[in-house]
């Protein structure tokens, strides 16, 4: 889901930076009040954790494997605003140091995966978990549904951003200049694979990790 450089036109990537920066500002302000001097080590280690979650491959069917992005899981474990910064830091490091995802697309990638992934995931989790006990099965189901929904909303937004390119950015002779597929192709292409496969993997990992933490470190879900 990491959008590389060259896929989004200047109008879109500039707009995505403009949309994402206020979320970073609010997250920083909130964390500054709660964590104070502790925030740098706390967020850095949270970001490193966000990065390495993607390293864990899990067996799916046959010999195939998949991995989770972990935005919802991190939001459940660290809180939504810490997750926004931690996942954003992981995305920025991936783009700057590993060339995974574009530098011009950092705003869009952070919005899709960090802001939406964390806030939508956390919102759905709190809504379903309501006041259920830390050890309840409802929490596990809430985590799974939240992860599934948030990943699919992230994929939908990515599809919309890519699908808008042929409408927004064309040459004088009418050819697309950036991602060439219209909304009718880009949105189903991204939505289907996340609805049918990646969303299920994300939901399964989130649910299993919550169940493990319920058994071994229930305080962390408090």
């Amino acid at each position, binding site marked *: 889901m990491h959008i590389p450089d*060259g896929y989004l*036109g200047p109008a879109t990537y500039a707009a995505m930076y403009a949309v994402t920066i206020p979320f970073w500002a609010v997250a920083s302000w909130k964390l500054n009040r709660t964590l104070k001097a502790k925030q740098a*080590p706390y967020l*850095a280690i949270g970001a*490193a*954790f966000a990065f390495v979650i993607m390293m864990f491959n899990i067996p799916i069917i046959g010999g195939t494997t998949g991995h989770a992005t972990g935005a919802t899981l991190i939001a459940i474990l660290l809180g939504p605003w810490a997750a926004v910064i931690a996942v954003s830091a992981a995305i920025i*490091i991936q783009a700057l140091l590993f060339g995974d995802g574009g530098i011009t697309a950092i705003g869009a990638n952070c919005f899709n995966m960090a802001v939406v992934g964390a806030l939508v995931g956390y919102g759905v989790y709190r809504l379903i978990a309501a006041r259920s006990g830390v050890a309840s099965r409802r929490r596990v189901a809430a985590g799974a549904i939240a992860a599934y929904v948030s990943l699919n909303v992230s994929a939908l937004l990515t599809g919309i951003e890519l699908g808008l390119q042929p409408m927004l950015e064309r040459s004088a002779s009418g*050819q697309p200049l950036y991602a060439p597929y219209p909304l009718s192709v880009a949105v189903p292409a991204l939505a289907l694979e996340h609805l049918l496969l990646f969303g299920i993997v994300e939901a399964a990992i989130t649910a299993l990790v919550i169940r493990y933490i319920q058994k071994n470190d229930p305080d962390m879900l408090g």
Partner: protein
Amino acid sequence: MASTTFLDKTLLAIARITEQSLFSETYADRRGFLQALDIRFQLATFLFILVLISFLHTPRSLWLVYGASVLLAVFSRIPLRFFLMRVWLFVPIFTAAIILPAILNVVTPGDNLWVLVKFSHPVTWGPYRIPAEIAVTQQGLRAGVVFVSRVAASVSFAVLFTMTRRWSDIFAGLRGLFVPRILVMTLSMTERYLFVFLRLIQDMSRARKSRTIRPFSASIERNWIASRIGVTFRKSVEMSEDVYKAMLSRGFHGEFRSINRFDSRFADYLWLATVLIAGGILLVSERGMVR
């Protein structure tokens, strides 16, 4: 019954990251053109070039910029074959593969160049229309070439940047470009602790693989992975507490100070001026404002 493929893939992903880190250290220490620049100037000019690439519309301009990246790689003493492989093996070839359907009239209508398939009649289904003749169009081909050229030029500069600077220098450069200190500090610490966690996961995966005589069911393996993610999280929370206490014991009060001193020379200003002027000329000439 699951195989241990998932463990192999995890170990391979970790090995790739470690390899990238080692390569970046190796080439960043060479005495080349880009390595000699003040990191702030390199960071600012590379960001300018990436934005410039996004504004260019013709393959000619994009390949000119791409050519500049190859020249810079040579002057920065990066082995050319290695550089070209790093650039082309990943994003541009992947992009070329996904762009293929877009050069057809199904996605990009226009003047047919080569007819590939003929049907008896066109088919329309909701927003989708398959014409009676499926063909490569001139407009589709041109859009595809522009798209792949843009991605190749962008990736080339992004790869060149990561190969010519130490990661610690990149963070120092961000600080020099007025990026908030708390963000730079967080990114810098993230990079350091990332390798601690990668080592942890590597050890867990290797230990598991070395103990495996007969693989368990996929369900048991998934539970094991979930438990390792849980353990990694618990360790990360413990580590953040320990690191914070260690910082406090060294006199940290929430203010971040940097020991980096930047040293800009005439050559850095000359490089900056060259990039800005060349970029400006390229953009203006492409838009037909200079005849």
